């Protein structure tokens, strides 16, 4: 049987004002009916452009060269006039995009938007199209679809919007569905739901799917075959099982090894791919990966390797293929003795550096007469403590209050009640000059490296600013300090005179880290430090953060939705759900002995780059979506999504219970057996007396 979609020598050029970018070059692959093909690679590798080329939807200046061929069920698409392309788009090939928040027209109802392609391609009447829309919306699992036809996109959550997007793509029952990073903008629990939905729909409707992603874990569970792309070309292609069992291209190897894994030993450094992908307006001769490859020889730099082998075999474009995945890394990160040079010696040894007790923050919504009546319960009584040189990781879905908590720790937001204490000084009670002086001990590193650096300031000025504000040193000393910082984060001193836009995302995040380091803080709160970065760059920044902690002895509070990232960096992890800390423990406690069903559900939802494991979990994970923080559920806030919830959970809020040394969870029906002695006894083992209000959680945390 001939494949449904045959792509031969696909080459795409984009004409810019001064150069021609070649995002896709000589890409060939087949897609069989009912098959899922994964396109994997870093951003800029050409995977999205391949998808857009198949849709005939290239950006201005883009075109598919004539020698390329895209055949859909035997029909050649390259060279078709636009009117015929329009009959295919949304009808025979449909696409789901990354960001559901911006992919729906805010001024049209979702019914209209889902019905639109039906009216267009099937000539259905308005009423018929609406009926079909309700049908597809039911298919994608939108609750009460008929009533929701007249909803506007802003009334739906991100996960529901992505379901609407999928409904829109499926409305005309396309033969091929291209899903371009369909879950990257979503929470990990929602990601699992959407991926399961896509796989299920593909089977039920007999479609083929092209799944574009940067996440090896996502393709491991959901793709039948995988194309690994690098710099506009296919580097390696084979079935999912064969790829993970024996990858041959060093890039595939590096891509897989640089993701922090849950099972990772966090005393080892992450594997990194050095450097950056090449500029596609002027690609290098020879193998495009040669400049970043540890196996590269002169032959790689001059002669370009072809994809060898027959269509169905394991093919790879490499002169020096490797054999299988990299073994676990063996370079360990040595941990410095805590509090060294931090001046904390006079503090009692059992006194934590940073203590957060019962923090509460609510944001009022609405203005005028309703002001103050309704509020978002962002953080509802969270306690934690952190020793010198330690890292505390905060995980949870978006909207769980982790960022608000981080902002309160560094004093950017004032808590409504509770306190933040750094070395015995209560930060949230400080004002004016006092607060300003203490800010040097508490610094922040932000998520988005593009918006967190002032675009009109030179890097030198950005790094010098904290010193100027705090009035530290002469101009000469400040410059020396800035140069030293650049060296520490691995940037050349020439960076001083340059502007942020001249740097890549990873480099900017290094600048952000250097800025946080400028004042030698005792605590750095890093809010999603790597989630805006590409996988290979992510590993570089994570390693850097670890190395700097080892040499400077500061503490981190790392906030992330990615449990693997948190587990790699943190000594202790706190899992937050809807403003509450539901479980606290060491990385091993959380990963191997999770006591709270929410923690277990989060772990289950994380895609792991092992095909057998991933395929086994289809349909698992947490159901439903985060309830509104305006009116959180009574009792245990997780009960609405919990498989074990009983009446007791709605009536009574579970108190934190001890499950091991420093392992605390708040659940009535935990997955582990609690330790017999009460949580309060941990007070004696090293909690800070008088600093806690009796919340066992805070005390147990302080115990470590």
């Amino acid at each position, binding site marked *: 049987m001939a494949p449904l979609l045959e792509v031969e020598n696909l080459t795409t050029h984009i004409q810019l004002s001064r150069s021609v970018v070649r995002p896709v070059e000589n890409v060939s692959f087949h897609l069989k009916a009912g098959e899922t093909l994964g396109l994997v690679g870093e951003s800029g590798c050409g995977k999205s452009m391949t998808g857009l080329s198949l*849709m005939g*939807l290239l950006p201005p200046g883009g075109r598919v060269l004539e020698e390329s061929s895209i055949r859909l069920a035997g029909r050649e698409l390259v060279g078709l006039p636009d*009117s015929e392309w*329009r*009959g*295919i*788009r*949304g*009808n025979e090939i*449909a*696409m789901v*995009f*990354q*960001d559901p928040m*911006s*992919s*729906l*027209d*805010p*001024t*049209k109802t979702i019914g209209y938007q889902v019905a*639109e*392609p039906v009216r*267009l*391609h099937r000539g259905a009447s308005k009423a018929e199209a609406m009926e079909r829309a309700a049908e597809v919306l039911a298919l994608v699992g939108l609750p009460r679809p008929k009533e929701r036809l007249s909803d*506007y996109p*802003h009334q739906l959550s991100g996960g529901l919007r992505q379901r609407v*997007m999928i409904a*829109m*793509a499926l409305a005309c029952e396309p033969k091929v569905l291209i899903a371009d990073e369909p879950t990257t903008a979503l929470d990990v629990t929602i990601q699992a739901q959407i991926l399961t939905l896509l796989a299920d729909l593909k089977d039920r409707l007999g479609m083929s799917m092209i799944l574009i992603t940067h996440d090896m874990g996502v393709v491991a569970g959901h793709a039948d075959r995988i194309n690994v792309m690098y710099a506009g070309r296919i580097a390696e292609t084979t079935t999912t099982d064969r790829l993970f069992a024996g990858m041959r291209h060093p890039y595939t190897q590096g891509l897989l090894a640089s993701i922090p894994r849950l099972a990772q030993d966090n005393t080892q450094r992450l594997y990194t791919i050095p450097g950056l992908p090449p500029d596609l307006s002027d690609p290098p001769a020879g193998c495009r990966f040669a400049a970043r490859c540890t196996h590269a020889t002169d032959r790689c730099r001059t002669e370009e390797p072809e994809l060898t082998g027959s269509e169905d075999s394991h093919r790879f474009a490499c002169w020096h293929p490797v054999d299988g995945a990299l073994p676990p890394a063996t370079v360990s990160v040595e941990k410095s003795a805590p509090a060294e040079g931090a001046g904390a010696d006079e503090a009692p040894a059992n006194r934590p550096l940073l203590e957060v007790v019962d923090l509460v923050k609510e944001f009022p919504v*609405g*203005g*005028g007469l*309703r002001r103050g009546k309704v509020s978002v319960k962002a953080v509802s009584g969270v306690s934690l403590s952190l020793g010198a040189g330690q890292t505390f990781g905060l995980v949870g879905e978006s909207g769980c209050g982790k960022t608000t908590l981080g902002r309160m720790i560094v004093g950017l937001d004032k808590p409504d009640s509770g306190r933040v204490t750094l070395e015995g000084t209560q930060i949230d009670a400080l004002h004016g000059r006092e607060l300003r002086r203490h800010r040097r001990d508490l610094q922040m590193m932000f998520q988005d490296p593009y918006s967190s650096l002032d675009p009109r300031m030179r890097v030198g000025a950005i790094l010098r600013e904290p010193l100027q504000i705090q009035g530290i040193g002469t101009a000469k000393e400040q410059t020396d300090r800035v140069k030293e910082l650049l060296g520490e984060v691995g940037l050349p001193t020439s960076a001083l005179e340059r502007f942020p836009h001249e740097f890549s995302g990873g480099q900017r995040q290094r600048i952000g880290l250097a800025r946080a380091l400028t004042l030698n803080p005792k605590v750095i709160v890093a809010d999603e430090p790597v989630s805006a970065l590409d996988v290979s760059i992510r590993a570089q920044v994570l390693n850097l953060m670890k190395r700097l902690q080892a040499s400077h002895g500061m503490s981190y509070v790392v906030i992330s939705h990615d449990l693997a990232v948190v587990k790699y960096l943190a000594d202790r992890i706190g899992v937050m759900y809807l403003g509450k800390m539901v479980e606290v423990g060491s990385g091993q406690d959380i990963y191997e002995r999770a006591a709270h069903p929410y923690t277990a559900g989060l772990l289950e939802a994380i895609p792991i780059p092992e095909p057998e494991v991933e395929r086994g979990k289809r349909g698992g994970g947490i159901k439903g979506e985060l309830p509104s923080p305006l009116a959180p559920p009574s009792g245990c806030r997780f009960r609405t999504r919990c498989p074990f919830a009983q009446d007791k959970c709605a009536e009574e809020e579970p108190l934190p219970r001890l499950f091991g040394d420093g392992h605390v969870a708040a659940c009535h029906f935990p997955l582990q057996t609690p330790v017999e002695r009460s949580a309060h006894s941990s007070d004696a083992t090293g909690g800070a007396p008088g600093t806690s209000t009796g919340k066992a959680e805070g005390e147990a945390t302080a115990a470590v």
Partner: protein
Amino acid sequence: MTGYLIRRLGTAIIVVLGIILVTFLMLHIVAPSPAQTVLGPKATPAAISAWNHTNGFDRPWYSQFGTYLNNLLHGNLGWSYKLNQTVDSLFKEKAPLSGFLSLTSLVVAIAVALPLGIFQAVKRNSFGDVSATTLAFVFYSMPVFLVALLLIQVFALSLGWVDANVPQDQSLSGALAHFKDLILPIVALATTAVASYSRYQRSSSLDVLAQDYIKVARAKGLSERLVFSRHLVRNASLPMITLIGLSLPVLIGGNVLIEYAFNINGLGLMFVNALSNDDYNVLMAYTLITAILTVIGNLVADVCLTLSDPRIKLV
């Protein structure tokens, strides 16, 4: 919505009262009495103080202000000492023509600027876009009376298409009888507005074109025409509503110069004359009208925005 409107009207009244008070005070500080202007340069001090006494200008300012407010509440805008007429009747005479000029030019400006801005965004960097941008900058930077003079020179004097003398009839019906001769003032007023609106419309359309939902619309197989008419126009025009609402009083302001340049006997010209004559009550009334228009323009814009953008709810 009703509650919102009531609250907004409440604030509007406070704003308007504040403006009246401030204007009143400023006028009284600059020139405490119009006596000199009314009685002429040769009036004796005794005559002036007698006039002030008769007309109540020797009372303290708050007492005068009280009287003014009281009159205002009874719909009495006062007396123009210079023109010897009630201000009410002056406005009744002149407002229709000025209002007609402003509104017509506003409608023309919107009708031209919105499609133009969208066209420019869709055909970004094309010859048409670049020319329209250049023209917009030229007209935007040109004072409105210069535009008026150029129009008169070209279309009235050189080409002779219209009469350079605009109808002097103050009534709207009388002026409309010579509508052809009103075209130049309307065009002059509209030109500057088109120049600024089209810039805004262009940039807001460019923002919308960069949105993912435009890409999604194309991915559905919609033709470019449908993509634009269904998903671009409405979204790109939303920011314009606020802008246009805010520019209502600006158009009235523009009238001052245009009526001066074309010698139209409207509100603007009356305002200019009142300024040089210390014609208190006319100045007050003019400020009052502008203030009310600003407040109304804002309110109408907010209501229109709510009606056209489902994301906005007035509470």
